[in-house]
């Protein structure tokens, strides 16, 4: 059950990177900048078309992990999942910056057996990939998928202990702290792919509130050689940031698994796919 939902999340994130830009996954915190000795944040988590409206399906919270400012693990509390959204609380008890992240890695793919296209079972990893492909399978298509959807919360002054990269998938390294964003000021972030600067990475930034305007207001940005890019926020508010590589819709309509044979690929060298999502709060000056 758990694995199924994890992959649902991964699929949704993959879909978000597709050309149609449908189904965006997000977490929306009640606040990102907090004062007081301790404080609570409530987070909505959903997969939707419009940002940030819960109108499609909830994001599963099973996989959401909290990292406290001192690097130790925190926890989510009061998690509940409804028809359109999940919600949970994070109790901030330490001064500094918290990370709330849903991270998943796995192998997705398909093969042909006796003329029939089959998908790799959910929960396939590098370790059990060989066992998942039956003898006689042809046209094996695999992709190693790393998805990260995370938000940052700061009680008191921002800190940066939690930003030590783990070296898997796409990660954000702040030059400008993500809880110190003000409209009209440029912010610089560095993106890493598997621990190295992600040069030429396409990054999309969309302000929330889509439902009540005509233009999407999307910024399409590309990182430089050093994996860095600069974003200027036209107005205060919540912004959705998405970066992905490997694109395509795994097993989806129009994808290789839908019947068009792709190039033969040895199962041992999966294609790299990764996606990154964060929600950033930009304050008024």
């Amino acid at each position, binding site marked *: 059950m758990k694995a199924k939902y994890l992959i649902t999340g991964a699929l949704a994130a993959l879909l978000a990177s597709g050309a149609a830009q449908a189904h965006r996954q997000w977490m929306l915190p009640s*606040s990102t*900048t*907090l*004062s*007081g*000795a301790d404080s609570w944040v409530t987070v909505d988590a959903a997969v939707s078309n419009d940002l940030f409206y819960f109108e499609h399906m909830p994001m599963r919270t099973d996989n959401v992990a909290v990292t406290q400012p001192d690097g130790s693990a925190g926890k989510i509390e009061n998690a509940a999942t409804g028809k359109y959204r999940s919600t949970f609380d994070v109790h901030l008890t330490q001064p500094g910056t918290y990370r709330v992240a849903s991270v998943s890695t796995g192998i997705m793919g398909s093969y042909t057996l006796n003329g029939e296209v089959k998908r790799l079972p959910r929960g396939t990893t590098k370790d059990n990939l060989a066992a998942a492909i039956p003898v006689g399978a042809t046209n094996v298509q695999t992709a190693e998928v790393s998805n990260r959807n995370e938000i940052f919360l700061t009680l*008191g*002054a*921002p800190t940066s202990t939690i930003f030590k990269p783990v070296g898997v998938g796409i990660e954000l390294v702040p030059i400008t702290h993500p809880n110190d964003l*003000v409209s009209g000021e440029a912010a610089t972030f560095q993106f890493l792919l598997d621990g190295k600067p992600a040069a030429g990475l396409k990054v999309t930034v969309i302000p929330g509130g889509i439902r009540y305007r005509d233009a999407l207001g999307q910024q399409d940005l590309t990182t430089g050689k050093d994996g860095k890019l600069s974003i200027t926020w036209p107005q205060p508010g919540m912004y959705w940031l998405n970066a992905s590589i490997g694109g395509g819709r795994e097993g989806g309509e129009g994808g290789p698994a839908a019947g068009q044979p792709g190039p033969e690929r040895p199962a041992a060298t999966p294609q790299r796919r990764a996606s990154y999502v964060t929600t950033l709060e930009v304050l008024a000056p």
Partner: protein
Amino acid sequence: MPSGYKLILGTGAALGAAMPATAQTLNVSVAIPRLPVAEYHRPYVAIWLEKEGAAPRTLSVWYDVDKAKGEGTKWLRDVRQWWRASGRSMSFPADGITGATRAPGDQKIAFTTGKGPLGQLSPGSYTLVVEAAREVGGRELVRLPFNWPPKPGAVFRAKGSSELGAVSLSFGK
């Protein structure tokens, strides 16, 4: 003897003009407007001093200091420019800086050089900033640029339009 006496007087006067040897005060007046609203809460107010190239100095913060379990600190971040400039690095309550919220009317507060949150002022350009944020209300910020040391009798004035009325800065000894 008479000439020596004159000399001392002259030196004293010159020092007084260029760099006052004695403590001076910054007298700040902040008008908190009386607002005809159904639910009124006294605003949170932060007063701080900015100087280019120096860390901002928080002089005074008026908030709900008496609420149980320090709950009043929850909304300090809504005084958002001050919070970013200085507040988020402080702990609360802060001795000699924080106090209770104040009622509508002209609120006066004085800061003495060399003492408390003001400390010593080196010559240069400063900005006194007053920011007010009100629960279920708005937020406003007023800036008062001035030079230190000030000319005798100098008074600096600015005016808010919603959450703050007239704000003035004068100097005394």
